[in-house]
């Protein structure tokens, strides 16, 4: 079956992006976090934005219902930033909720319906004890068939990790190196939940033991620290605590406008030139357990629309909810051949100063993963990096003209990819 090339009815530009601090905030609700993100976003709009000009809101949120006992959050978010009675729509696609919200915002502008759209994401996860968070996240997989036999969300990625290890010869150390790299980046991000390197966290642990007069642990390096089950317990083997993104409260917002209006808002707008989205089966029905069809599908659509190739992309924020997920993502996106991502990571190619910097924000691993806000959170990093405003974590020696975000829902049931251009 042939299909005409997909394109947007008109171009869409990004003219502002901001996020709340990511972390655990006992006193903040999802709406408070959303207001923080909105205020951070408006500050980044070079020529300012009048709220009166914003025509609609699309907000990603996975499960305020279960996390906070609050459903129907879109009008509340709209109200708290002053948008009522404008249309406000909540998008739920698990951890890809706000990535898909971005796409809905793009489509609404491209259709000609709106000129100016606010897109955000918000999630307040730390109210619940860990067991209930585990249950809530597990409900994003197939509850009838996967959840019923005891698969958890980390467990499904852990299973993909064992398939990846068996197929390509990767070891647990290769997963750990993804976490070390992302924490090195997150250490430079003041908005990150864990803005410390794993080496710093290790040294802090040693210092604490000394102060308390407890036996002082000895670890030769970060890898030895990460292999110590007391420091880094197994969650679902081979995924340990430091292979998993944390439980996070946070929100993020971006402002999208029709391309021909970009100059009214911004001196240095970013154009969204490719969008793609795909779906996939439950894990057991996938032909290949080491690759996500939704990712490959979304990437192909986005590359085709943008008219660019994987090798043209200079930096990317990819969905590293677990360390194995980053390895699979950078293969599915075509940055590395299947089975090569773990070697590329080991060689430093995905580090901030490498050939293909991945997750310069710290990724979900270190920056934090407030699930429904993570997709828009990724764009905040791309915005800062492309405009040369990422401060100490600015990618060195690159004039960034093309970037990509990759946001996955749960174990890959949904994936959305966007490609960004600075002209």
């Amino acid at each position: 079956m042939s299909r005409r090339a997909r394109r947007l009815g008109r171009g869409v530009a990004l003219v502002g992006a901001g996020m709340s601090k990511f972390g655990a905030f006992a006193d903040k609700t999802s709406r408070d976090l959303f207001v923080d993100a909105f205020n951070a976003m408006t500050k980044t709009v070079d020529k300012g934005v009048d709220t009166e000009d914003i025509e609609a809101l699309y907000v990603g949120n996975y499960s305020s219902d279960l996390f906070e006992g609050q459903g129907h959050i879109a009008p509340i978010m709209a109200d708290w930033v002053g948008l009522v009675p404008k249309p406000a729509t909540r998008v739920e696609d698990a951890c890809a909720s706000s990535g898909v919200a971005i796409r809905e915002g793009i489509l609404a502008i491209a259709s000609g319906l709106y000129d100016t759209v606010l897109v955000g994401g918000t999630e307040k996860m730390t109210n619940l004890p860990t067991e209930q968070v585990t249950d809530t996240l597990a409900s994003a997989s197939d509850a009838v068939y996967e959840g019923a036999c005891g698969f958890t969300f980390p467990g499904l990625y852990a299973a993909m990790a064992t398939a990846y290890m068996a197929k390509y010869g990767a070891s647990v150390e290769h997963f750990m190196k993804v976490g070390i790299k992302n924490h090195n980046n997150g250490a430079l991000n003041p908005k990150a939940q864990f803005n410390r390197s794993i080496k710093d966290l290790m040294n802090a642990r040693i210092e604490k033991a000394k102060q308390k007069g407890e036996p002082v642990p000895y670890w030769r390096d970060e890898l030895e620290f990460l292999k110590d089950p007391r420091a880094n317990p197994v969650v679902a083997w081979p995924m340990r605590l430091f292979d998993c993104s944390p439980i996070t409260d946070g929100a993020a917002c971006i402002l999208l406008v029709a391309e021909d209006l970009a100059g009214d808002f911004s001196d240095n707008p970013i154009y969204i030139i490719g969008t793609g989205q795909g779906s996939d089966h439950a894990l057991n029905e996938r032909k290949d357990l080491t690759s996500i069809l939704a990712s490959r599908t979304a990437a192909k659509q986005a590359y085709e629309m943008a008219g660019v190739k994987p090798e043209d992309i200079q930096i990317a924020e990819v969905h590293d909810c677990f360390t194995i997920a980053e390895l699979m993502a950078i293969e599915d996106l075509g940055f590395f051949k299947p089975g090569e991502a773990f070697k590329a990571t080991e060689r430093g190619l995905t580090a901030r100063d490498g050939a293909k910097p991945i997750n310069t924000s710290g990724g979900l691993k270190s920056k934090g993963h407030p699930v429904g806000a993570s997709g828009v959170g990724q764009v905040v990093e791309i915005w800062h990096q492309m405009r040369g405003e990422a401060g100490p974590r600015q990618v060195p020696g690159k004039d960034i003209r093309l970037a990509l975000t990759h946001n996955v829902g749960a174990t890959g049931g949904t994936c959305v990819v966007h490609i960004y251009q600075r002209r």
Partner: protein
Amino acid sequence: MTEEREFDSASFYRFLAEKKLMASRCKKCQELYLPPHPICSKCHGNDMEWVEMKGKGRLAAFTAVAVGPSFTIEEGYDRDNPYLVGVVELEEGPKVSGRIRGLDARKPEGIKVGTPLTVEFMEQEEGRRCFVAFKAR
């Protein structure tokens, strides 16, 4: 073997309680579905039939879960007593998720993808459905 049952999860679990691992098969293109799908994703036909799987396969992917959902904590599992769950590729082709037994969940590094397994049906507990499990052959 044909059975007059709906191609839904209730039928699948009822078969499990009868110690049968049943897939649906598209009569038009012969594609097998486990769990049973009512509509064929390959040819989009909706004329399906039930087929019993022999229950023999190999471990395709697995994990030892240390931090499980609430119901596994009630079953007595925790950090010190993890359980195994995985994806098993059946001889007939389809893969299925299930609990894995008879292998040491405390030593997952010693478990090999490719290990031959046979289906087991976990006992139905009060208020919970029977679900798929496999044990090492």
